């Protein structure tokens, strides 16, 4: 299930929507509501929509789906160096169509039909640092784009590129003054078709195509604070494309992707609705070597236990209690300040998973969105 990830993307794509040339009459000074951006009330405007029964086809679906309004390649990695120091990496590339498909190539080299956004972050737990960078580019050849085979997606110097003809091994590359990564993701992980064989319903009339690849072995180099670290670990990829994925009424979302020491992977999320009711599309999933077990809202609970306050006064819940069936997980940020101070601010960072005795039983990534808006509303 990909609801929170979708929501996260949509939040990030608000500024991209402002770039869109498909709304020439609109007042550019006002942000478009997220639900409208996601097609929740605005229709699909000539874009393709996700349909049940359409199978995920690889390697074709690693490439871009320009008929859909938006899509993303979302990598997170749990890593450690030779001394055992923990690190985390987020590497994300988004595509947002600026206008419905025209059926013809753009009129000129510089005439872009798509905007691309890239976010990369490194968490250095022992160093107490969380460095991140953001890149935005027009979809002109060379500047940003994606191809299915040999796979490559890139935005202004950030790239995820297959090393050979196959999707894996895959190289993640980003370089800047503060963030420098060169990681290779190898075969050996799990392919998870989210929802109904890759058709992920988000609401009565909203859906996306969505699959994940978990526990991809990772080796490579991270440079943070001008110190390089040889790291190993495993990564989680989410691939999703859609035109209309969210219904209205959500204020934010909390999302978790955990890799447990016993070999299981856990994903869970909750959507925070304006009326405080539980969203029926909240989901959790537990994946092991043989099974993928899904849980509806009645069978799992996700509650905050600790908050961290940022410099603007927004409170971000960085400690959580997750109960799935009769199993309880305690989740805590490995570094409180993993806030993405990007065009749209959100919290995405490395977390530790403990059992009831406090013993670490895994690590993963937590994503929180919409809390800054909550704080702003409270201030009003």
């Amino acid at each position, binding site marked *: 299930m990909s609801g929170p990830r979708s929501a996260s993307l949509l939040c990030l794509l608000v500024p991209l929507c402002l770039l869109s040339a498909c709304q*020439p009459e609109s007042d*550019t000074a006002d942000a478009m509501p997220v639900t409208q951006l996601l097609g929740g009330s605005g229709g699909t405007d000539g874009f393709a929509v996700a349909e049940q029964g359409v199978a995920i086809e690889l390697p074709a679906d690693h490439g871009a789906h320009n008929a859909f309004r938006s899509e993303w390649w979302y990598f997170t990695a749990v890593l450690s160096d030779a001394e055992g120091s923990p690190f985390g990496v987020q590497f994300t590339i988004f595509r947002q169509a600026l206008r419905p498909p025209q059926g013809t190539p753009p009129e000129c*080299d*510089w*005439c872009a039909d798509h905007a691309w956004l890239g976010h990369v972050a490194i968490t250095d737990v022992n160093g107490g640092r969380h460095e991140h960078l953001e890149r935005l580019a027009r979809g002109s050849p060379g500047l940003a784009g994606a191809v299915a085979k040999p796979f490559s997606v890139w935005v202004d110097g950030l790239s995820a590129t297959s090393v050979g003809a196959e999707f894996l091994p895959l190289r993640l590359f980003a370089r800047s003054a503060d963030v420098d990564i060169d990681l290779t993701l190898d075969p050996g992980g799990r392919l998870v078709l989210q929802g109904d064989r890759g058709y992920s319903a988000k609401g009565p009339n909203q859906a996306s195509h969505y699959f994940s690849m978990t526990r991809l072995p990772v080796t490579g180099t991270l440079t943070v604070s001008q110190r390089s670290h040889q790291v190993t670990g495993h990564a989680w990829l989410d691939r999703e494309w859609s035109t209309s994925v969210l219904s209205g009424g959500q204020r934010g979302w909390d999302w978790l992707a955990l890799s447990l020491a016993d070999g299981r992977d856990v994903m869970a999320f909750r959507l925070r609705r304006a009326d405080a009711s539980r969203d029926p599309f909240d989901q959790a999933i537990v994946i092991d070597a043989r099974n993928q077990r899904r849980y509806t809202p009645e069978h799992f609970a996700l509650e905050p236990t600790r908050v961290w306050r940022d410099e603007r006064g927004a409170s971000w819940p960085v400690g959580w209690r997750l109960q799935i069936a009769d199993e309880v997980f305690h989740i805590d940020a490995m570094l409180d300040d993993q806030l993405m101070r990007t065009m749209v601010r959100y919290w995405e960072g490395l977390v530790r998973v403990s059992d009831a005795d406090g013993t670490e039983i895994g690590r993963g990534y937590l994503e929180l969105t919409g809390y800054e808006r909550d704080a702003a509303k409270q201030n009003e």
Partner: protein
Amino acid sequence: MAVHLIAVSVDRSLAKLTAPWLGDDVLVLRKPAAKLDDYVALRTAWRNGDLAETLTEMTPVLEGEIENANSALHILGIDAFSWRVGGLFDSTLNADDQSVAATLATGAVLASEELPGDALLLQTALGEVRTQAWPLGALPENWLVADIGQVSRWLGTSEGSADLSYVLATQRQRQENWMGLAERMLPGVTAAAGQGEPELAGLPEGWTVARAGSDNTLRVFAGSIMFNLAALGSLSAVVAGFLLYQAAVVSFQREALLRQRLLALGVQRGTLRALFLLQTLIDGIAAGALGLLLGIALARVALSLTSPDAAIELTIDWVVWAKALGTAFLVSGAARMLASRRDSSVRKMPWITAALALAMLPGLFFDSWGLLGAFAGLLACCLLAVLTVGPGFVFADRFSVSRLPTIIQLGVNQLLAGRREMGAALTALALAIATAISIAVMVDSFRTDLLRVLDQRLIDPVYIALASPAEAEDEAGAVLRPSSVGRAASAELRERIQALDPDAVITATGEAQARVEGRRIDIMYGPFDSAHTRRYGYDRDLADGSVLANEQLLRAFDLVVDDALEVTRGDRLQALKIEGSFPGFGDVHPTLLVNVADAQRLEIEPRWSRFAVASERADALLAALVGDSRWRVRDAIGVRRSAEEQFDQTFAITRALTVLALLVAGFGTLAAMLALRLAQARQLALLRALGVSRRELWLMEVVRGLTLGGFACALALPLGLLMAWILCAVINPRSFGWMVSFQPTPAMVLPALAIGLGAALAATLISNWRAGHNPGADTSALVTGSGARGSESFGGDS
């Protein structure tokens, strides 16, 4: 401080007028016929860390012209998607990157403020396009900024792969480097020093880099003016330094006995040093605060004199405080330090001064040293002149005036005997007079040149310029006037002139921009026959392929007459020969005069904007044409008067500064005279006791003052003329690109000499008057022995 505040005020005003992409931290990267692939390779190299890490953002640019109203609009296409945080428009639009990017990417444009906002109508390659325009005050008149995709389609470059005009890249903010700090402390110093061509290691093959600011000739020009003012303003500090030294010497002499007693009583030397520092601190705070207050007042007065209509906003920030207090501490501390050690280290001072002067002197002869080098050379001349003061006293002492009446001899000898007290005051006074002479000669020479050029240019009685869209009043209230209106106005103007005077001869010119070696130049095109070229000191027809260049252009590209140069415009390149040059007083940009045919070869579509009219019925023409908002009409006399007024206003500050320097020097001379009188009180008392009358003593004082003034003038006259020549022949060309003819006359020199002589005499008389209010002082000095120190022998060696 007044100069600093004025300079900052001017700089801020100019910054508001500066196109954002011509900022101090912007680089221009060029590659002939660069395509998207070239840009991607360049950007990838930067993103991979192969280029300097100081780059913060980069955008491709398509620049062109697009028609709207009277004249073509310049349009700049940038990549709105990459030009984000830290980009050019953040500060100018007062909005974050999202708004800028959103504005451009939705197909709207940023437009200079005079253009219509709601619906700008443009004649594009796609036909007539109506677009929303957001006003951006920082844009120069008739400029638009849009997304590069939009511009590519509007300019009709969508077929195939469009050539990029260039790539802009920003560097870290200037406040982060030392040059930035120096610029804030001494406005104009960056322009004066010349930043040289930037280097960007790792550039892919074929790319070159230059500073975008070099295209911003207005700010470079203004920077030179500011540095000129700052350098002259700093003269006050130099003069003050001499005077403080003078005062400190007297103070130390007075306090010598007290210091000895304190030491005898067991006071530590460290305590005395702390006391010394405390005195310096008090001096600094008092001088800094007072200087700041006076500076603010003076700046307000000066700005209101030079630009009465401008709103003056003086910002007193930390830099102003730091500069005021820092200068005061520095000057006061240095003067006191030198005074405290004058019996030891000061002996080495002439040698140190001479070495310093000789090191700076080459600045006059090497253009590459820039304006800073020129002022260093000027300072070197001053220092060398200062070094002649000591030997000058000795020389004068040897040729004692024994044939003159006794009282006059006594006056002269008394001054010569007090040379230790008077040396610094004399130096300060001489420097102030020399500066006044140099400024007067330079300004008046400049004025003479300007008037000669005006006489040459203004040979027709009537001059008309088409109004820009900003000036033109749109009677219909709509701003969507078609581009043909400009041509229609031009045609109608000709018709009306011909109707009023069929014999009138109209000489029309137009203006455009082009580039030489990647740098912007102005082109004035027209029918340059002999009648027209005579205005520029060239009395033949200008042949095709030949041009006249202003002095700025020749200096900017290191060219001389008969050289060839390559002019580019878009993808057109034209080789032209420089047939002659002309002075470009007031021209901000390097400028070429070219024939219409050559302009057309550069794809300049003739668009006449200026008209000179030779007519016997000038008055009737003026009366008939004045009042129409589509053009501005002036008669030759009015143009000349206006130019003279602007010139005089511009140099009002400079003249005020020289008077200020003379005033400071006058005060210093007064202080020195008082000190000398104090030092020689015992001798004066002895003279009184010997029967010398008060009248004779007064005459002696007058002789002393006149001798001092005479010495100062004798030193100042050659120094002032030398400085004036440096200003005309070295500093003006390096500052503004033009040379001023050095043409001194007695009328330019005498006022400064008279003021200097008067200041010395006034100081003497005032000191005498003050002594006269304490009638017992002289005789009591005889009894108490005070005043013996500091005057080794009464009357010197005579």
